[in-house]
């Protein structure tokens, strides 16, 4: 039996969750993804935006498994605000492991418990009854989860130390690029301005080649396409469908999923973004989709 991994979108919005009738086709919850490694006895998530809360409610008092692993890209609100509302965190029978980067400014551990600040949340820290473990992860490192899932990291061009994750299980694979801005003259990541100081063009080439190498041969790439080429504000830390496709072409991936939809985008605007790259993707042999809350994709075959 070959191994099967699936990816489910629990939240596809960037910046903040939003609710309006005309955008519920794609969904209004902020970033949260779930990997399902068929037959394994653990849960694996990427980020804890508002989409995580609803999943926690579904899992209820008796989740399928007691081990929960979280790949943390970074600590902006849209990626973390669901953690205190994830039910399994209040049950001492559960183990939650967070893989996250630290910045020079703060540790993930501190920021996580910062959500429990008493003026902002009436739940004291001691009520988080689950066992919590924090694994510090740097860019360009490899590790495995439960000895089964191979994970690699890469630092993206976004504020702080924002990580991209490559997740491999058997022949199934995906890269998740939640937040990434064009690099040309725009160095947002911690340490990047210093690395670019000597020779900016060389740094930009190195960054782009590094990202292409990271994506190389992966089955599915989920990529930030918050903006269009017309609305792009590079210093806000986000990308466009065209830029996402350009990386995927160079890396020879099978499928591109547009992700991190702007909260202002109604269903129609997301449809338009998809159409804006559909022809070019098709001619490059890349299947292109726009992430839709609740949909689940196979990551192989």
């Amino acid at each position, binding site marked *: 039996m070959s191994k099967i991994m699936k990816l489910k979108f629990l939240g596809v919005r960037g910046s*903040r969750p939003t609710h309006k009738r005309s955008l519920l086709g794609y*969904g209004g919850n902020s970033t949260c993804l779930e990997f399902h490694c068929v037959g394994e006895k653990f849960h694996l998530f990427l980020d804890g935006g508002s989409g995580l809360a609803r999943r926690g409610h579904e899992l209820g008092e008796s989740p399928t498994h007691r081990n929960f692993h979280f790949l943390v890209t970074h600590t902006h609100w849209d990626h973390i605000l669901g953690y205190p509302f994830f039910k399994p965190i209040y049950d001492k029978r559960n183990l939650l492991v967070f893989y996250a980067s630290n910045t020079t400014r703060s540790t993930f551990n501190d920021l996580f418990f910062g959500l429990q600040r008493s003026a902002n949340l009436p739940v004291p820290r001691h009520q988080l009854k689950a066992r919590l473990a924090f694994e510090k992860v740097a860019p360009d490192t490899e590790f495995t989860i439960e000895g089964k899932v191979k994970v690699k990291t890469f630092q993206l061009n976004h504020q702080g130390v924002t990580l991209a994750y490559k997740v491999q299980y058997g022949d199934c694979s995906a890269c998740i690029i939640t937040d990434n801005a064009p690099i040309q003259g725009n160095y947002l990541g911690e340490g990047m301005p210093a690395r670019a100081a000597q020779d900016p063009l060389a740094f930009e080439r190195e960054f782009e080649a590094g990202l292409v190498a990271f994506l190389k041969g992966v089955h599915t790439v989920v990529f930030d396409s918050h903006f269009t080429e017309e609305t792009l504000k590079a210093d806000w830390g986000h990308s466009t469908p065209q830029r996402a496709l350009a990386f995927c072409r160079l890396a020879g991936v099978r499928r591109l999923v547009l992700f991190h939809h702007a909260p202002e985008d109604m269903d129609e605007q997301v449809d338009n973004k998809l159409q804006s790259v559909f022809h070019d993707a098709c001619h490059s042999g890349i299947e292109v989709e726009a992430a839709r809350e609740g949909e689940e994709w196979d990551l192989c075959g």
Partner: protein
Amino acid sequence: MGSLRVKFWGTRGLISSPRPETAIFGGNTPCVQILYKDHLILVDSGFGSTNLGDDLMARLAARQEPLHVHIFYTHFHWDHIQGLPFFKPIYFPSTTMSLYSPQPTARMLDNLNILFDGSYSPFESLLSMQAKVHLCQLSGPFELDGLRIDYRAVDHVASDHPGEETYAYKFAAENLGTVCLITDHEVRNNKKNRALVEWAKGCDLLIHDGQYFAADYLAHVGWGHSSAQAALDNALKIGPALTLLTHHDPARNDRELQAQHRALMQGKKYRRLTFEFAREEVLYEVAKVKSLPKAG
């Protein structure tokens, strides 16, 4: 003559719940707009406020009109503040934002500034945003262009910080009516609730926390929210023309809220009341109470 109206931009408590099954009652965290003359007056800035902010952008772009936004905070739990960094007018130097609470301004700043902290967001501080931000500590009733505003402490979960409470607000306009908002309050048989009821008496529109159904409430005693039944019990004593229940539980969908509303309407107890579960983006007129119903 004018009018006094309210509009909910967010009706959902705790965390956003955007899904097709919540499309009728809404899925954004709390924000209520008080529509009085041309003023922009909000209670709380949950994610609902961002939809209003997006609408205001059209006004900003078309008329280059400076905005003055007044926000009254009931308290600083995430769901009641989290929309502030995403409220677009805050990115414009032509905007003035007056933020009010009975808390000392240093506490308000601490409690809001975490939203603008460089680790959680790409900002540095609330005070370094483009808009002019004024923090105002309330120290008793005051008047805004003929609108009288008053507040009163409610029964909600306390923070570690002594004296940090949650507040109900009352907005009263001469000849137009009175609105009372009691959005995070647990109705219990105690002095605080009795005092609150006395204070709210005579209002025309009552907005009241009704997060739970009676059976759910039993599992959440002490969490700082009321059942719809307990909210209506308060409404019977307060006697408004219309009661709107809000702070819907994120787990509840439209069908469940509609069924609950029908069940409550069918009972004898609340027959004297006109009440609804609040819906987002619906305008509610404040209708004057003709005469107070007899206590029963």
